[in-house]
């Protein structure tokens, strides 16, 4: 399985949870913390992200950046 991860701009996140719905890996969840604008924001809560970008694609607020193990590195790792 390809390894990925996401970086979340928690100040831009509005806690809409659409990314959570979009993630088939259930890697994301809402934090208990709230950001400066008063929103609970999303965190990567499981280390099973595949870097599929689904979460980022549906994120209205462009709060998610997605990284994926490059093919090369992936091979190395395996």
């Amino acid at each position, binding site marked *: 399985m390809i390894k990925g991860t996401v970086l979340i701009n928690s100040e831009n996140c509005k806690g809409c949870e659409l990314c959570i719905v979009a993630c088939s890996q259930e890697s994301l969840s809402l934090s208990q913390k*709230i950001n*400066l*604008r*008063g*929103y609970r924001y999303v965190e990567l809560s499981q280390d099973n992200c595949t870097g599929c970008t689904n979460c980022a694609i549906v994120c209205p607020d462009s709060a998610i950046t997605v990284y994926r193990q490059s093919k090369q590195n992936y091979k190395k790792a395996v």
Partner: protein
Amino acid sequence: MHITDEIIIAGFGGQGVLSMGKILAYAAMFENKETSWMPSYGPEMRGGTANCITIISEKKISSPVVSKFDSAIILNQPSLNKFEDHVKEHGFLFYEASTIINPPTREDIMIYKIAAIEEANKMGQKQISNMIMLGAFLEIKPLVKRESVLSALKKVLPERHHHLIAVNEQALLRGKELIEINYHVSV
């Protein structure tokens, strides 16, 4: 106390900001006082913040929109940042301890820190933090009577939520207690 009290209530949408103002206004009306309630309106609310100005007075009210306030009830950080400077000298500022990290710094006003959200959670009713705050406020500034506030509640709460009136009453009381505990002799 002034015969006129100009009150700003500000916070996130959903914190019950507008209702708190309305309850005060209704209560004032029931006591035959003059009153006005002016909400922030329109898509500025998209930003997630809301505020309203309630004025209670013995005399006819001139402007429903003022920029200096006798009292401020502030429920979130952005609103505190925005309104702290707008409290009149010797005015009163109530703020929500649970969401406001950087507390107010002014020294020429009376400041009350209320952990209403925490208290509400303790009471198992998240929705009533605003009433706790209101209870605290009214303990310091008894602009209107408790019965008036209860009648007001009935007006402001939609019919289908009237079963929550008792809970709200408790919240008001809890707010009063918080003041008694923390600030009882200070005013």
